[in-house]
Each structure stands twice: as structure tokens, then as C-alpha cells.
């Protein structure tokens, strides 16, 4: 007979029945609350707000007292089971619920009840505790205390799955340090977990895999002890489970193996296991549930930073598979985020992967999309375009997949947006594609710039990262970026409260003005203002200081008029550079600052004299200029930058050079440089060469030094092709700022 809908009592009504004097009413209300909240996050929240958790926790506490006083057994057990189940459900996957349960003081009571003689009570309590331990809000378990370890062992030894499962989840949640991992090993816990792997039930095996991974994480010592000969061949049981019939077990086994691989160079390094792991994880993507959602994250942890694995994954058609899943659409946000991050990892180092990604085809119905990309590249068409050249065809293909990424940039989920930016950042590391103008188009730039205003800081930072690469654009103009307000937004972000946003905004600006034309640079500078830039140079955060100095370096590189920037408003910027170089907290700051000065010194006599004065500003009775300190630095780039500055200051064609040379000699700098003739770094040696092997002819001297202050074109040409490529490679994000040209 079909069920009729019973008119449910309102939640507030139910709550008041929880405090009823009649046990029948009370237990029925309790059961009703439990049944209403299970599976229903919305109800959990509304009952929580009404104060249900303390009420239920109170019932649990009262029932414990009844147990102690040996009151009506059946009734008491019923109360215990229902209240524990309700508390467990509040805590299930719901952090606010976990907090409420902990705040209500139920945790110690639940622990005590693990010793209760009634099986159903123990089951309910163990489940509730396990729900708590699945949350990061769970109280920290101190493994290093003897009685705690003994208690844990007793849990793991229990016949009941719910209890041993609790033991495993305590380990998974609370074990963090190498010390704790070792303590667990010494107590024989790993042996116990291994026996659960081999002889336990499905849930015990899964729980065991998770705990083992936690104990192994970043601990090669424990791993080699575990995999040693005494315990048989335990790694093989984990490897077998990677081929288990249940997808969740396969995933957890793979994750455990990946933890072992990443922590220890001795295990699981052969190509067979690498290929197997890749294939299993790619196949797990097909699982429609949570396992498929988590699989791409496991894949990322396998291949991140590892070129050999990225190559193997490319050969296994990983990029096609990920693309296939994204195309399907209506993805769970976790899965969407995971796939985008996996693609980001795939394209992070290998050009072959980026090329593959950008050549993916889309569904026929998306054939109209490339209009947006092509139109903004200056190819105007009213009808469907026929690609007239292979470059156009490439652009059209690329635009298909870029549209997919652009969609993700506007997703309602912040994690997905951030992941899309990170994916873009990886793909835009391709100098080839940057040069071909793949990315400087409306489809990408407009949504990206919108993310500068995103409510989430991590999305902002990720968007800035992708932007930093895209604005390093050699061929097409950067006008799209300026037109959609990108430049102004970047400058706004340079004033953000978050230091990571400030430094990344400056990074993007630095790349934006790299080799840009004078008008663009002047535009940036007038928007930025000398006072803002100088305060950024003096920012409390070293990373911000570094990027600000690098921005100055790129701004003044080029036309002599641009050097005037540092003298604006009474030399605000120049003064800030000087002060920052005095107290530079890390080499990178010195490097950028010195190159900035080097560029200033490539101007006219006035500029050179100003730099000279800066180098010799005394601080207290410190006789030694920071120049000597930099020349003696361990960092070769810093030494190089400093020598180049001195090269510019002593350029023989300038009238003030002999005088400056004398000052430098008196300060012991010349002799310091003479000592560096055999410097281990080639770049330093080349720079020193220019000080001591000066061509007598003024024209060739000018040709060599140029007005640009840094290594001029003629010398650059003398570098090998490989070296030139190396220099070009350093232009993009995650690497040092644009330098030689």
C-alpha cells in the first residue's frame, strides 16, 4: 500500500518534545529528528540553528547516567543508540555540525560509550566518532602518549568493523609528523593495518589503505621499514588492491602507492608501475560518483613536477580523456576542478602537451565559437570563415579548446575558476603560442580581467598568474588588455590588502611593460604614480619589494626619457631603490634593484652621477657600500647585475667616467672586481671583460654598451642559439623576470 504523507510536526515542535518528561514521546521525537536529518543537509542546518545538538547531547549524557545507575536497560539503550546516531548524522560531512557536537561536550561521552556492553550502542557510537574524525575540526589525537596508543591498538584489534574503522580514521585524521608516524610504526600499528589489508572486509581494507598512506606520507624511513623483508611482501598487497573490483579500493590503493613513490626514491620507480598507475587512474575517471571526482586529484599528485610521468601520460592519451570528460558538461564542481588542475599539471613543463591540448577538436555545434577569437585578431568575417592559412587553422582549433577554458573562468564555483586560471597559466608558458598570438583575444582576456575583482583571493592570484604570461606578447598589440581595463585593474590590485595579490599584480605589470612601447610605459607610469611605486618598493613584504623593483627595471629599460620616471617627485623612486638596497633581505631584491640602477646608468651623465651618489650613500658609520657586499655575494646573478652597473658607470665614452672610476677604486671596488676575474659564473666573467677590455673606438664602444644598459644586441647575437633560447624561456611566470635584450 502506498504511504500517505503524515503531517510532520514542525522542527520547533519536535525540539520541545525532546525535553518531554514522558520517555515514549521523547524517544519518538529523537528518532524523528534523526530520520529527518539523515541525508538532508538543509534540515541539519535548520535543526542546528534551533539548538537541537545540545538537546540531543543532553539526552546522551542523561542516558549514560542511567546506565551507571542500572536503570531500565532497553529504554536506555534505545536512547543511547538514537542520540548517538543523531549526533553522528549531524557530524556527517557537515563541519558546522561537527563543531556543534564538540561544543555540546558530547565527545568525551561518546568515547566512554565505546566500552558499553550493548553491540548496537557501540556501533552507533563508533560511527558517530568516525564522522567526527572525518572532519578537520576533530580534536587532535596525541599518539605519543602511551595510554592513547594502547587505546588505539585496542580499537584496531576489535572484531567490530565499526570500531576498527574508527581506529583507522583516527590515524588518517590525526597523524601528521614524522615522529608520530614512527611511533605508530614502533607500536606495530602498520603490521595490524597490513593484516586488515589482506584479511579484512571491504570497508576495513579501504580504511587501512587511507591510514597507511597517512603514515607513509613524506617518511621514507617508515616506508623502507614497512616494505622490508620481515613483513613478507606488503607492497605487493597494495599493488594487488590497485586492480581490485571496487573502484574506491582501486583509487585508495593508487593514492597509497603514489604517496610511497613520492616519498621514497627506492620504491615503485619502474616504468611498469608508472604506466599501470596512469592507466588505472584514467580509467577511474569513468566512475560517475565520488571516486571519479577524486581520481584527477590523485592523477595530479602522481605527475606533478615529473616530466617522465607527464610524457607517459601524454602517450596514454590522458589529455584526450580529460578533454572528453570536460566536453560532456554538467560536471560536479570537484571533478571539474580536478580535471582542470590535472590538465594544468600535464601542460606545466612539456611543450608537446601544450600543443596537444591546443589542438583538441570540439563538437561540430561549437564551430561558430571561433568567431570571437578570430575577429579580435583582426580577421573580420561576416560568415563562417574558411581558414586561409595553417596559422589561421591552428588558431581556430586552439580557440575551440580555449572556449572551454573560458567557460570555466566564469563558473559559479570558485575552485573551478581558480583551476581554470592555473590551467591557462600552464598552457601560456608556451613561448611559441604566445608569439603566435593565441591568447591575446577577447575570449580569454575579458573573463580573465573580470576575475581580478573576484571575491576569492585565491582566484585573484591565479588569474594574475595566467595574466602575467599572456601579457608577454611579442607580436600582437596589447591593446585588448588595455581596452578592457586590464591595466588599470592591475594597478588597483597593486594596492590590495593581501600581499600575495600585490606581488602578483606587480608581476603581471612587470611582464606587461617588458619591451613595450614608450607610450604604453608612460601610460602605466602615470596611472601608477611615483609615490605608489616607491611605497611598493618599500613594502613590508619582500616578495612585493622584489616585484616592484623588477617593474622599475622594465619600465626604464629603453628610451632615455623613461629613465626620468625614477627622478619624478624629487627622486622618490630612486631614493626608495637606494634605501631598499641598503637593507635587502634577500638576493632577489638586490638583483632587481641593481638591474634597475644599471638601466638608469645607461642614460646620460646626470643619471650616472645620481646612481653613483646612491651607491655611496653612507648609513651611520658604515664605510662599506652595499656594492662590495653584492660583489661578494654567493648569488651569481647578483654579482652579474652589480658588475654590469659598474660597466655602465665606467663607460669610457662618458666624460665623468674617469672620476667615477677613481671613486670606485678608492672604495676598493676595482680591486674586488679584479679578484673576480676567475669567477665560476660565465655571465660575471663576460661582464668583467667589458670593464677591462674596452675598445678604444667610440663607435664600437657605443655599439657594445648601447643606451640600454644591459647586454646589447650585438653581444646577444654572439651567444649560442641554446643560450638565447634559455634567456627567452625565462620570460614567463614561475621564473625570473624578463632580462637580457
Amino acid at each position, binding site marked *: *500500500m*502506498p*504511504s500517505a504523507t*503524515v503531517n510532520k510536526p514542525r522542527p520547533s515542535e519536535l525540539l520541545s518534545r525532546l525535553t518531554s518528561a514522558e520517555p515514549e514521546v521523547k524517544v519518538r521525537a529523537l528518532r524523528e529528528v534523526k530520520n529527518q536529518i539523515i541525508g*538532508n543537509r*538543509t534540515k541539519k542546518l535548520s535543526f542546528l540553528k534551533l539548538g537541537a545538538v545540545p538537546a540531543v547531547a543532553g539526552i546522551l549524557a542523561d542516558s549514560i547516567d542511567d546506565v551507571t545507575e542500572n536503570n531500565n536497560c532497553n529504554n536506555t539503550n534505545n536512547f543511547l543508540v538514537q542520540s548517538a546516531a543523531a549526533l553522528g548524522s549531524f557530524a556527517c560531512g557537515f563541519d558546522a555540525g561537527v563543531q556543534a557536537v564538540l561544543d555540546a561536550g558530547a565527545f568525551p561521552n561518546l568515547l566512554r560509550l565505546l566500552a558499553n556492553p550493548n553491540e548496537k550502542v557501540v556501533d*552507533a557510537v563508533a560511527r558517530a566518532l568516525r*564522522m567526527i574524525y572525518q572532519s578537520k575540526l576533530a580534536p587532535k589525537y596525541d599518539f605519543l602518549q602511551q595510554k592513547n596508543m594502547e587505546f588505539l591498538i585496542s580499537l584496531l584489534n576489535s572484531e567490530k568493523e565499526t570500531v576498527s574503522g574508527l581506529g583507522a580514521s583516527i590515524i588518517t585524521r590525526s597523524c601528521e609528523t614524522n615522529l608520530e608516524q614512527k611511533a605508530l610504526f614502533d607500536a606495530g600499528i602498520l603490521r595490524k593495518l597490513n593484516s586488515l589489508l589482506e584479511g579484512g572486509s571491504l570497508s*576495513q581494507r579501504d580504511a587501512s589503505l587511507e591510514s597507511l598512506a597517512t603514515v607513509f606520507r613524506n617518511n621514507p624511513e617508515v616506508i623502507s621499514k614497512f616494505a622490508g623483508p620481515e613483513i613478507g611482501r606488503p607492497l605487493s598487497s597494495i599493488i594487488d588492491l590497485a586492480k581490485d573490483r571496487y573502484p574506491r579500493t582501486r583509487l585508495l590503493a593508487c593514492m597509497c602507492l603514489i604517496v610511497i613513490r613520492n616519498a621514497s626514491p627506492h620504491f615503485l620507480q619502474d616504468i611498469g608501475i608508472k604506466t599501470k598507475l596512469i592507466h588505472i587512474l584514467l580509467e577511474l575517471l569513468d566512475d560517475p560518483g565520488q571516486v571519479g571526482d577524486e581520481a584527477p586529484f590523485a592523477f595530479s599528485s602522481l605527475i606533478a613536477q615529473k616530466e617522465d610521468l607527464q610524457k607517459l601520460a601524454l602517450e596514454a592519451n590522458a589529455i584526450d580523456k580529460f578533454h572528453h570528460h570536460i566536453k560532456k558538461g554538467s560536471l560536479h564542481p570537484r571533478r571539474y576542478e580536478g580535471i582542470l588542475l590535472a590538465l594544468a599539471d600535464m601542460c606545466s613543463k612539456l611543450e608537446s602537451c601544450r600543443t596537444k591540448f591546443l589542438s583538441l577538436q570540439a563538437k561540430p555545434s561549437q564551430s561558430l565559437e571561433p568567431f570571437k577569437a578570430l575577429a579580435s585578431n583582426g580577421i573580420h568575417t561576416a560568415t563562417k570563415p574558411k581558414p586561409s592559412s595553417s596559422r589561421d587553422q591552428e588558431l581556430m582549433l586552439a580557440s575551440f579548446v580555449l572556449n572551454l577554458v573560458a567557460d570555466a573562468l566564469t563558473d559559479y564555483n570558485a575552485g573551478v575558476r581558480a583551476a581554470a586560471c592555473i590551467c591557462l597559466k600552464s598552457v601560456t608558458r608556451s613561448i611559441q603560442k604566445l608569439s603566435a598570438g593565441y591568447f591575446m583575444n577577447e575570449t580569454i582576456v575579458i573573463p580573465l580581467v573580470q576575475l581580478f575583482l573576484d571575491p576569492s583571493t585565491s582566484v585573484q592570484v591565479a588569474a594574475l598568474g595566467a595574466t602575467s604570461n599572456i601579457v608577454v606578447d611579442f607580436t600582437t598589440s596589447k591593446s585588448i588588455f588595455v581596452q578592457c581595463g586590464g591595466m588599470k585593474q592591475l594597478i588597483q590590485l597593486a594596492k590590495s590588502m593581501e600581499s600575495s595579490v600585490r606581488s602578483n599584480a606587480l608581476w603581471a605589470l612587470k611582464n606587461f611593460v617588458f619591451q613595450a612601447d614608450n607610450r604604453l610605459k608612460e601610460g602605466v607610469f602615470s596611472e601608477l604614480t611615483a609615490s605608489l611605486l616607491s611605497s611598493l618598493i618599500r613594502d613590508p613584504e619582500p616578495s612585493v619589494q622584489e616585484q616592484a623593483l623588477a617593474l622599475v627595471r622594465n619600465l626604464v629599460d629603453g628610451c632615455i626619457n623613461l629613465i626620468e620616471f625614477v627622478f619624478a617627485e624629487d627622486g622618490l623612486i630612486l631614493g626608495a631603490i637606494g634605501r631598499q638596497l641598503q637593507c635587502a633581505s634577500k638576493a632577489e631584491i638586490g638583483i632587481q634593484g641593481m638591474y634597475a640602477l644599471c638601466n638608469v646608468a645607461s642614460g646620460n651623465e646626470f643619471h650616472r652621477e645620481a646612481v653613483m651618489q646612491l651607491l655611496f650613500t653612507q648609513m651611520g658609520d658604515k664605510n662599506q657600500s652595499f656594492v662590495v657586499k653584492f660583489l661578494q655575494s654567493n648569488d651569481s646573478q647578483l654579482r652579474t647585475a652589480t658588475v654590469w652597473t659598474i660597466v655602465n658607470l665606467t663607460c669610457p665614452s662618458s666624460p665623468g667616467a674617469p672620476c667615477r672610476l677613481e671613486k670606485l677604486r678608492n672604495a676598493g671596488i676595482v680591486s674586488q672586481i679584479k679578484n673576480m676575474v676567475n669567477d665560476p659564473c660565465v655571465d660575471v666573467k663576460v661582464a668583467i671583460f667589458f670593464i677591462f677590455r674596452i675598445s678604444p673606438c667610440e663607435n664600437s664602444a657605443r655599439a657594445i654598451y648601447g643606451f640600454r644598459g644591459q647586454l646589447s644586441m650585438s653581444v646577444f647575437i654572439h651567444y649560442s642559439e641554446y643560450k638565447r633560447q634559455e634567456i627567452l624561456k625565462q620570460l614567463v611566470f614561475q621564473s625570473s623576470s624578463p632580462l637580457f635584450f
Partner: protein
Amino acid sequence: MNKLVMNFLVTKGYVEAAKKFRMESGTHPGIDLATITDRMAVKKAAQCGNVEDAIEKINDLNPEILDTNPQLFFQLQQQRLIELIRNGKVEEALEFAQEELAPRAEENQSFLEELERTISLLAFEDTSNCQVGELLDISQRLKTASEVNAAVLTSQSHEKDPKLPSLLKMLIWAQNKLDKKAAYPCINDLSNARLEEPTF
């Protein structure tokens, strides 16, 4: 062979038959038969369309099942909605959909399509001929009941499918493969499992 039969009876939930079979053949069921009774009560409630009762029984058995299985929970709630529509309780159905099902779809967008399909039942005068009419069919209830049964089995760490059907499938597959390579006595009629001589 006995273990295969016992496995089938246990997984499908034929408690009485399993008990008798144990007595007659001495085969161990490999699972506590009492848990089967609980599971069967849940399955029966679902098969009869008593969804609310089924939910209460599952929660008594193991509250984690529905808490960690949003797909199954949604399916059960959907079945409740279908039963309300079947009984012509239109207002209650709409209220139920709004209060209980809409939040599920909010929490998880992939449910939205199913929800809309179910609600559209209300739009049709003659539900037997419409596209979503199959939702009202008894087969939908059986589907839900079977999902519930599988979830409970998995939570008890028991395999949710009996081995026997898979073995039969494998037999047929193996015979198909072998047909291309050799002549051999094969089983053509699964119900009597007689070995027939190859014909030429």
C-alpha cells in the same frame, strides 16, 4: 556448486530458502542470517511503495547509508513523490517536492533533471502514454528497491551481486569464443544444462 546456490539465495534475500538449504546441504551461509531479515524488511517496504517506512528501517540498520549516498537518498525521495502523484495527492506532492526534493537538487545540480522529469508527471492527464510514464510503473519501485538492497549489502561488506548470473554470462561468452575454434559438447539450454553433442 552449493556455495554458489547459497550465495545466490543470501544475496537476493531468500532467508527461508537459505535456512532450509543450510539444513539440507550443510553449506554455511557466510553471513549472519538475521541481517538478511532486516535487509529484506527494507526491500519489501520499498517494493510496496512504503518509502517512509523503508527510510526509517534503513536508518535503524545503518544511518550512514543514506547520509553518505546522496544518489540513493534522492531516489528514495523521488519514489515518495511518485507515490504521492500516483494517489492523486497533487497539493501534497507539490509541497513535498518543494520542501524535500528541491533542496536536494540545490545541493547537487545533477538531480535537477530527474526532479523535473518527475514533476512533469503532474502535467499529463494520461500518464500511461507520456514519456515519463515509466516512472509510475511498478518497475520503478523494483528498481529503487534493488538499489536499496545493494546499498545495504555493500554497507555490510557483502558483494551486491550474486555470483551465479555472472558465471552463466561467462559460460556463454566462453562458448561463443570456443565456437570459432573447435567443435565440442556445449550447453545450449541453460535451464536444463544438458551437454549436447556438436552438430556438423
